[in-house]
C-alpha cells in the first residue's frame, strides 16, 4: 500500500511549506502584511502536519522514500526587493499547490479505505490550503504591476 508513502510526502511537504512561509515572512518583514500572514499560514501548515502525524504512523509500514523535491529546489534563501517578493511568493505558490493536490489524492484514498477519521482531517485542512493559494494569488496580483513596471 502506497498511502503511507503519500501521507509521509504530504507530512513533509506541509512542514517544508511552513518553513518556507516563515522564511519568506522573515525575508520580507518590511512588508508588514506579508510578514504577519506568512507567519499565520506557517502555523496553519504545522497544524496540518500535526494532524497528519497519527495517520503517518498508522499506515506506516515502510518509511517514505520520496523526497520533497520542490522545497529543496526552490528554497535556499529568500530574495530581496519587490521583484524578489514576487519570485519568493511564486515559489510558495508552487509548494502550496503540491500540498493541495496531495490532499486531494489522500482524500480519494481515505474514501476508498473508508477511513472516516482521515477524511475528517482532509476536510478540515484542504480548504485552508486552498485559501493559502488564493491569498498568494491575491497578494502577487497586487504586487506585480508595481514590481514589474516601476520598481528599480
Amino acid at each position, binding site marked *: 500500500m502506497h498511502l503511507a508513502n503519500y501521507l509521509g510526502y504530504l507530512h513533509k511537504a506541509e512542514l517544508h511549506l511552513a518553513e518556507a512561509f516563515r522564511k519568506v515572512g522573515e525575508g520580507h518583514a518590511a512588508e508588514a502584511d506579508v510578514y504577519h500572514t506568512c507567519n499565520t499560514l506557517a502555523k496553519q501548515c504545522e497544524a496540518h502536519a500535526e494532524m497528519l502525524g497519527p495517520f503517518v504512523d498508522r499506515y506506516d509500514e515502510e518509511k517514505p522514500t520520496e523526497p520533497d523535491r520542490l522545497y529543496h529546489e526552490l528554497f535556499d534563501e529568500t530574495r530581496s526587493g519587490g521583484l524578489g517578493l514576487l519570485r519568493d511568493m511564486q515559489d510558495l505558490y508552487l509548494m502550496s499547490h503540491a500540498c493541495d493536490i496531495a490532499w486531494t489524492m489522500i482524500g480519494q484514498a481515505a474514501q476508498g479505505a473508508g477511513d472516516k477519521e482521515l477524511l475528517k482531517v482532509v476536510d478540515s485542512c484542504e480548504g485552508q490550503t486552498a485559501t493559502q493559494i488564493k491569498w498568494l494569488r491575491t497578494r502577487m496580483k497586487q504586487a506585480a504591476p508595481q514590481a514589474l513596471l*516601476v520598481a*528599480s
Partner: protein
Amino acid sequence: MTDPIAQPWGTRTPFGRGGEWPVRVDQFLEEGLSEGDVDRWVQTASILHSNGDALDIAVKDGRMVGVRGRGVDRVNKGRLGPKDLFGWQANAAEDRLKQPLVRKGGELVEATWDKAMDLIVEKSKGLLEEKGPLAFGFYTSGQLFLEEYYTLSVIGKAGLGTPHMDGNTRLCTATAGAALKQTFGTDGQPGSYADIDHADAIVLYGHNVAETQAVLWMRMLDRLEGSNPPELVVVDPRPTLPAQRANVHLALNNGTNLALMNALLHELIENGWYDEEYVQAHTVGFEALKGAVADCTPEWAASICGVSAEDIRKTARIIGNAERLLSTALQGFYQSHQATAAACQINHLHLLRGMLGKPGCGVLQMNGQPTAQNTRETGADGDLPAFRNWDNVDHIQQLADLWNVDRMKIPHWGPPTHAMQIFRYAEQGSINFLWISATNPAVSLPELSRIREILSKEDLFVVVQDLFLTETARFADVVLPATTWGEKTGTFTNTDRTVHLSEAAVEPPGEAKHDLDIFLEYAKRMDFRDKDGAPLIKWEHPEEAFEAWKECTSGRPCDYTGLTYEKLRGGSGIQWPCNEEHPEGTERLYAEAIFNTQTEYCERYGTDLLTGAETSEMEHRAMNPDGRAIILPAAYTPPHEQPGGDFPLRYTTGRTIYHFHTRTKTARAPQLQNAAPDAWVEISPSDAETLGVGEGDVVRVESPRGAMEAKSRISGIREGVVFAPFHYGYFDQPGGDSPNGHPRAANELTITEWDPVSKQPLFKVGAVRVRKVAGSAGESAPAPTNTASAPASNSSMPETTGGVKA
C-alpha cells in the same frame, strides 16, 4: 444655555419610545453679539465629526461670528456639540496659509500660484514620461466635499491612471465599508439615526458615542431619560459615559472582540433566539457559522476577554430578546486586529434576529470622519465610484463610457492600493510623487518615525494642500493654501446617508484657493483629455460637479439622481438613495430583505477574513447569493503583538470630545484647546500603584517602535490597559514637525500592521511599558475631567469648564 464645555451634552429633552425627538436649538455668538446683530445666516453642517449636525453660520460684516443649529434637520434637530459651537473660529486664525510655498535651498519660501503649479505639473509630466502612472500616489481626507473627491477620483483614475489613491478614511472607516460590502454586497449604511427613537435595546461596540458624536449621544440620553427607555450594552475597555449608563458594560481586553462576538452568536443559536424563517430566506452561510461558533461558549470567551461569562450571557439575552435592536460600531472594533471579521459578526447578529430595515432595527457601522462616506462613494479612497466592483468588467465599462475614455485607462487589475501600501511604495522608491490633501499623516499614521523618514525622502516629491502649515506640510516640496468649510460650496454625506449642502459664507484669506479649483487647475495644466480629445473634466463649479456625480450614481445603491442643490437648500438633509422612486430619500435600506449581493451588481465578490484572499467571480456565482446576505464566520486569533516580557501592558489610542484628528482646527479654537490643552496617558489605579505613578506625574510610555511622554491621569480604565489620545503632534511645539526630544504623539508607539480585509491600521492593539520620569509639580494631567478620561477617584483637581468664553 449651559456651558457646553463643562456639559457638552446640554440639558435633556426626554422622549419615549416611538416618540418624536424634540427640537432644541443651540447657538453660540461672539461675545457681545445677539441675533439682531447678525447680517445673514448661511446653511451648512459640521465637518468636525461624522454625525453631520446641520447648522447655520452667522455672518456679520463679512466675517463669521457664530453658529446656530438647524431645528428643521433630521440629524440634530437644532442641537450642536462643543466642536460645532466653537470649531469655526479656526477659520480666522492668524496663521492660516495665505500663499503657496515651495522648497528652495531646503527651506519653504513663498511663491506665486503660477510658480507652484508649474513645479507640480513639470514634475508630473516628467515622471509620467519616465515611469508612468504607477509612480503617482494620492492621499486625501475625510474632510473635503463630495465634488472635490469625485474630481480627484476622475483625475487619478482616468487622467493619470493610477490605482494608488486613498484617504485618511483608511484609518477611521475602512472597516465599516469592508464589513458592509462583505455581508450585504455593497457599501451603504443599513440603518438610520432615527432607529434610536424606536429601539428597545442599543448595543455600542467599541463606540464611545458620547465623545465621537456628541449629538447622537444626546439623542440616546433623551431616550434613556424618557418613558420605556432602551436597554444599553457597551463594549469598551474604558469607563466611557455610555458605559456608566449601561445595563451591561463589557470592559474587555482590547484585542479580543471576535471572541466576544462568537460567544454572543453561540448563545443566540444555542438558545434558539433567531428567526429561522428569515435566515432561511435571506441569508447564505448560516450552517458554516453554526459550526464555527459551536464551541464558543461564554466561559471560553470570558477567559479570553477578561469579562464574566454571566455578563456575556446577560448581553446575549438582551440581544436575543430585543424586539427592536440597534447596534453601532466604531474604532474599538475597526482599529483592532480581526477588524472586519468582528464587524461582520455584528451584521450577523442582526441577520439572525431578522432585524434590519424596520424602525428601531438597524446596524450603524459608523464613520469616524465627517465626509468619509463621500471618500468611499466617489472612489477617492481607491474604490471605484458609486460602489462599483473593480473585478467586474461591465462596471469598468460603465465608467469608461461615462468619462469617455478607453477602459484600459482605468486601473482595475486588482484591489486599490491602500494608504499603508502607498507609503510602503514611497519608502521603496517606486512612488515618487505623493499629493496629500487635507490630512496630516505625520501625526496620524502608525509608527511616526518611519513616516517622517518616508516624507523626507530625496526621491519623493510631496505636495501638501491644507489650511495651515501642519506637521506634514513642513515635509512638503510644494504647499498649496486651501480654503475650507464656510468659505467654499459643496455637499457631504454623514454616517446615516444624510446629504447636506454647505454654502460659502465668507471670503477666504489671502490667496487661498478652493480645493476643487486646485484639482481643476491641475487637470487643465496636465491637459487630461477624453478619447475624443475634449477635456476629461467637463465641469468648473461645485454644482456642475454634483450634477456629473449624480450621473455616475444612477442605478447604483448610492443613487443621488433625485437630489439638487436647490432641493437641499432650506430644509433638512436628505438620505440617499434619492431618485424618481424615492424622491424624498430613503430612511432605511433592505426593508424587503433583498440585499445587493447579485453577482452583476455587488461591489466585491468577497474576501477571506483571515488573510484577505479575494474571492473570484466564479466562486461568487457558485455560491449564488442572489440578493441574500452573506454570512461568513471567522475563528478568533490573538493579536500578533501580545503584552508580556519587556512590554507588559496593552496600549490603545483614541480621541476626546474636544478635539478632532490632529487638532489642526480645534487647537485654534480657544475653548476647545483649553479643555484639553496637552497630551496625557490614562493608567488604571492598580497599575499606577505597581508603577509608583501618581496623578499628574510625567510618564514615559515605550513600545518596540518608539516612545511618548506625558502627564498621567489615574482613571477608571481597565487594569493592564494604557490609553493615549492621538490628537497631539508638534506643530505648536518647538519641534514643529517632530519630537525634538519631547515626543508626545500617540502614534510614535503604534505598530505598522493592518486588518487583512479592510487594511485599517491597528491603533488599538499593541504592547508597551510605562515608567515615571518626573513628578507632577503639583499639577494634574491636562485631561478632561468630565469624559472617559475622568479621574478614578474624587479629587480636588480643577474641573473642565469653558470659562467666560463659553
